Every structure is written in structure tokens, then in C-alpha cells.
């Protein structure tokens, strides 16, 4: 099997490097005794880099492994194999004790604002908890300033999470993440549980934080328009693998991988005059317990070329968008490919 490596855009100053990262969960079959343990390949050989100050998007449907990938990077899951380098330190297998000081620099914003804030704590304590945990000197004014940065009035400080609306709770989550002035914020579907008008408020807030505080973002979303709006680069995931990566507007405007194409096409457009025939994929995402051989997408691919798709895992080929995609169609000589492309097999540090 061809080793699947990716080609990275030149990064002057990578904050986070992820190399060949895999996360497999072993499940036992539901039998009284015996039974082979099954392996769920949630994340499979994923490689990418995020530069300082960049906002990087992860797009995919449920079961694509995007959340598992993010949680593995934050070491909420133990990675099965691969390497995670954050701020120049290899944190892949760093013991929790040594990791704790580094956690200051990587924070997370969650999707479910109801369950991500402890219902028994007041907003004041929730926002101040990171400062208390890292024994940083802080005053009431610091907490007020954090609330202010997140666009929240100080009157909420003495309330409990359930007394706030979804948008306000998400602002609390952001204030809490900002408390340690992190370099990286991993935002897992930060707006998908919110109404459109509130969603826009939160996206604007995150955008301001990024431009004013220079925070690097790893944004996970299923909504292509959110990622395209917010991120400079995007990785499209399918069944635990990255199938396409590149500048987000170019990838979404001119997708190269058939899956990205179908995904973009599936999104309804807000213009009733441009109702169009869309690419409707047949079937559903296969089970990550028994992923297809070869290209993970070949079972649903509308432009499958032949046995090569089900037998050989496609390498990464450069695309017109300036990124890469893992599809045999892009191989030189297949007609559909870009001008002079050849599979580039090299390590993540390589430059194109």
C-alpha cells in the first residue's frame, strides 16, 4: 500500500504539526465471551500543519473523524500512532504532568453550550477557573475584562449557565478559553447549535479575536459555508482520512476530489433562481469498523475509474487550488488531472 503523505504549503512558522496521526478504538464484540476485538479506525494517517495566526478548518460529515482528530491533538484521546508537535514540543506521548503547563496554550470551544459549562458553578467561577488552575494572579477586573472581550455584560457573572441563552453561554465558553491567552483555540462546531443570527454574532466575535489577538484557530464544522467564511485553509475528511486540503475558498469554489465536489454540491444555495441538479451520492458513509480498501470513497464515488480505486490507496496529488487531493483521477495521464502533476510522496516538512 502506498504510504499516504501530504504535501504542505510552505509554512514559515508552524504552531502545530500533525504527522501520520492515527486514532483507533478497539471495541469488543457484544458477546458473552470470546469474540474478536474489533478496531474502529476513527482517524487514519492524517498529516497537516497549522501556521501561527492561521485559521484552519476541518470539514466532514458525522463519522468522518474530525472531532476525534481534534480531541487527539488536545490529548483528550491518546493517539494510537503518529506525531503531534505543538510549539516545537513533541506532545504525542507526553505524560499528563508535563503536558499540563502546555495546556495553557491550547484551549477548546465546545459545540454543546449546555453540557460544556458545569451547571453548578456560577459564570464568575467558570471564567476564572483556568486562572485558578494555573495559579495565575488575577483580580475581579481580569475576569471582567475577559467577559468584556467575549462581549458579555458583567451582570451575568453571578448567574448560572442555565439562566443564559445559547449564544450567551457560547460567549462564556469563549471567555473561559481566552483566560489563559492561548496560542491555539480548537473550536468544535462552535456555532452549529445556534440560530443563524446568533451564529453570525459568534463568528464575528471569533474573527475579531483572531485578528486582534493573533490566535490560531482549528475550526471543526460540518457547515461548509462557516468554514469557507472563517478559515484560510481547509482539510476535507472522509472516513478518518483527509481527502483534500488547500486554501478554503479555492477548495470549496473549485473542488478536486469527487467527495468534496459532492459535499459542496449537496449544500443548498440561498438563491431560488439557481436551483440546480446536484450530485446526490448514493448510500451512506461505510462503517469505520470495516473501511473499504483502496480509496475510502470508492463505494460511493460517482466517477470511479476502475479496480485501481478499490485496490490502491490514492496518493496525494497537487491540485489547481494550490493544495492537494487524494484521488487517482488526478494522476497524470488520466485526462482529468492537472497539467504536470506527479504523486508527491514526501514528509510533511517538505515544500512544494
Amino acid at each position, binding site marked *: 500500500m502506498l504510504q499516504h503523505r501530504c504535501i504542505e504549503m510552505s509554512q514559515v512558522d508552524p504552531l502545530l504539526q500533525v504527522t501520520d496521526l492515527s486514532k483507533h478504538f478497539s471495541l469488543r464484540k457484544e458477546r458473552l465471551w470470546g469474540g474478536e476485538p474489533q478496531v474502529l479506525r476513527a482517524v487514519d494517517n492524517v498529516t497537516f500543519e497549522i501556521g501561527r495566526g492561521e485559521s484552519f478548518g476541518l470539514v466532514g460529515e458525522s463519522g468522518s473523524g474530525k472531532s476525534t482528530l481534534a480531541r487527539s491533538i488536545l490529548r483528550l484521546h491518546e493517539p494510537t500512532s503518529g506525531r503531534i508537535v505543538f510549539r516545537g514540543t513533541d506532545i504525542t506521548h507526553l505524560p499528563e504532568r508535563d503536558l499540563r503547563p502546555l495546556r495553557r496554550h491550547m484551549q*477548546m470551544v*465546545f459545540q454543546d453550550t449546555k*453540557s*460544556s459549562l*458545569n*451547571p*453548578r*458553578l456560577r459564570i464568575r467561577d467558570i471564567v476564572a*477557573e483556568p486562572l485558578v488552575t*494555573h495559579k495565575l494572579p488575577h483580580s475581579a477586573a481580569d475576569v471582567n475584562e475577559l467577559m468584556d472581550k467575549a462581549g458579555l455584560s458583567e451582570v451575568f457573572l453571578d448567574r448560572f449557565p442555565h439562566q443564559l441563552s445559547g449564544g450567551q453561554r457560547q460567549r462564556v465558553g469563549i471567555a473561559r478559553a481566552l483566560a489563559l491567552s492561548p496560542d491555539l483555540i480548537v473550536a468544535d462546531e462552535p456555532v452549529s447549535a445556534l440560530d443563524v443570527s446568533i451564529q453570525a454574532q459568534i463568528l464575528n466575535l471569533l474573527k475579531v479575536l483572531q485578528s486582534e489577538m493573533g490566535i490560531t484557530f482549528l475550526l471543526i464544522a460540518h457547515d461548509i459555508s462557516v468554514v469557507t467564511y472563517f478559515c484560510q485553509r481547509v482539510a476535507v475528511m472522509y472516513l478518518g482520512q483527509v481527502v483534500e486540503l488547500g486554501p478554503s475558498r479555492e477548495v470549496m469554489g473549485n473542488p478536486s476530489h469527487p467527495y468534496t465536489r459532492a459535499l459542496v454540491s449537496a449544500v443548498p444555495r440561498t438563491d431560488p433562481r439557481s436551483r440546480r441538479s446536484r450530485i446526490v451520492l448514493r448510500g451512506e458513509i461505510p462503517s469505520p469498523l470495516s473501511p473499504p480498501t483502496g480509496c475510502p470513497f470508492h463505494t460511493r464515488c460517482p466517477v470511479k475509474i476502475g479496480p485501481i480505486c478499490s485496490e490502491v490507496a490514492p496518493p496525494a496529488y497537487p491540485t489547481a487550488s494550490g493544495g492537494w487531493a487524494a484521488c487517482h483521477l488526478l494522476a497524470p495521464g488520466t485526462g482529468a488531472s492537472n497539467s504536470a502533476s506527479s504523486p508527491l510522496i514526501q514528509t510533511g516538512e517538505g515544500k512544494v
Partner: protein
Amino acid sequence: MIESISTEMRGNPPMIIAMAIITIYMAIALFAPVIAPNDPNRQDLRRTLEAPSREYPLGTDEYGRDLLSRLVYATRSSTVVAVSVVVASAVIGTALGIFAGYRGGFVDSLLMRASDIMMAFPSLVLALGLIAAIGPGLRGTIIALAIAYTPVYARIVRGNVLSIKEEAYIESAQTIGVNSTRIAVRHVLPNVAGPVLVQGALTFAFAVLSEAGLSFVGLGVAPPTASFGNIIASGRDYISTAPWISTSSGIATVLIVLSLLILADGLRDALDPYQHRF
């Protein structure tokens, strides 16, 4: 939490009455020497088995002791036993439950199998066995009942911890770098407080009943110290001639147990996180 309990009480009159009765019981237990009109152990063999009168509002028992004063002191024994049992079993059970649920794995299996074995016996039977080993009396009753009720707390708390562990705020605390002891104390513990409180009220009721039962058969609080159980037991022989002995003590027991059960029910409604209110 206090807020939701008080909201619940406003719309639940039986719970208010129950709370009042429980408060009165507690006050009687606390101020027994002040409240009791006579010494509960002073015998007057000339005036045995007297019917209620102005001097002895509830009459006297077979040794001519003032029944009202004995009931006041019985409330005290009952409360001492019940409070000690509730506190001991709740603290130990909650700690074990959090430990088992949060740690998981082998420790969890071991603790849960042990509690399964203990819960396989009815708690009164288990307590009887334990008293046989420890020895009867107030201390023995407390220890035996505390041990018998601990597994219930461990079970309830462990179950809650398992679901709380999956909540995003635990993950959120981990990303901040909060260590696991602190997560258990600050994030898990307050969220199991509700179910523990409900179980506390239930255990209180069962402990009162069990203490009365154990004292009735002579394994609990030993005479001459008054207890609901041993008053009922001593009145048993005179049930046709002096029914007030067993009846008054029986009614007192039923009243407190019923009140505690109503309280537990109300608490459960008040603290149910899934109850939607408009």
C-alpha cells in the same frame, strides 16, 4: 439547588407539612432534657400501666415510667442512630462511588461486585448479621446500618458519575489542565449532590425503621435507654390493657418515616434535571 427546592415546596403542601414534622422531631431530639417533663427512667412501681392523665399525658408503662418522657428520649435515640447512619453511609458511599465511577477498570469492578454481594441481602438481614459480629447496642446498630446502606450510595453515585464523566464540562476542565482530584471534587461531586440528598432522606427513613425493628427484637438500643422499638416491644404484653404504650410509639414512628418519604419524593421532583417547568 436550594432555590429549586424552595420552588418545589411552594407548590407541594404535603412536603411543607412533612418538613414541619421533621423539624419538630429534630428539635425534640436536640432539646430532649428540656422538653421531657420527667426523668424517662424514673420508676414508680405504685403507678404502673396508668392511662393518660393530666399528670402523665400519655400514661405510664409497666414500671410506672412517664411514657411521654420516654418517647421524647426515644426520638433522641432514633435521631442519633439515623443521623449517624445517614452521614456515615453517605460520605463513605459517595466517596467510593466517585472513586469507582471516575477510575473505572479493575477497582470499579471490585467495588461494584462487593456492593452486589452486600445488596443481595435485604438490608435488615445484613444489619442483623453484622450486629451479631459487632455486638448489639447503640454503637453496633449505627455501624451495622451504616455498612448496610453504604452500597446503595456507592451504586447511585457511580451511575451518576459515569454519565457526568461524559459531559463536555469535564472535557473542558481537562483541556484547561485541571487535575483529576480537583475535577472529581469540583466538577463531579456537586453534580451528584442532588441524588445523594434524595437518597439521604430515604436512608434516614429506613434507618429510623430499622433501628426501631432492631430495638424491638432486642438487638438495637438496649433498655433502659428508651427507643421507639423497645417501647413497642414492652407494650406488646399489655396491648389489651394498656394499648397507649405500643400505639403512641408506633404512631410516632410512622409519622416520622412517612414525613421523610414525602420529603424524599419532593426532593426528587425538585432536583430532577429533566423536569421542564414553564
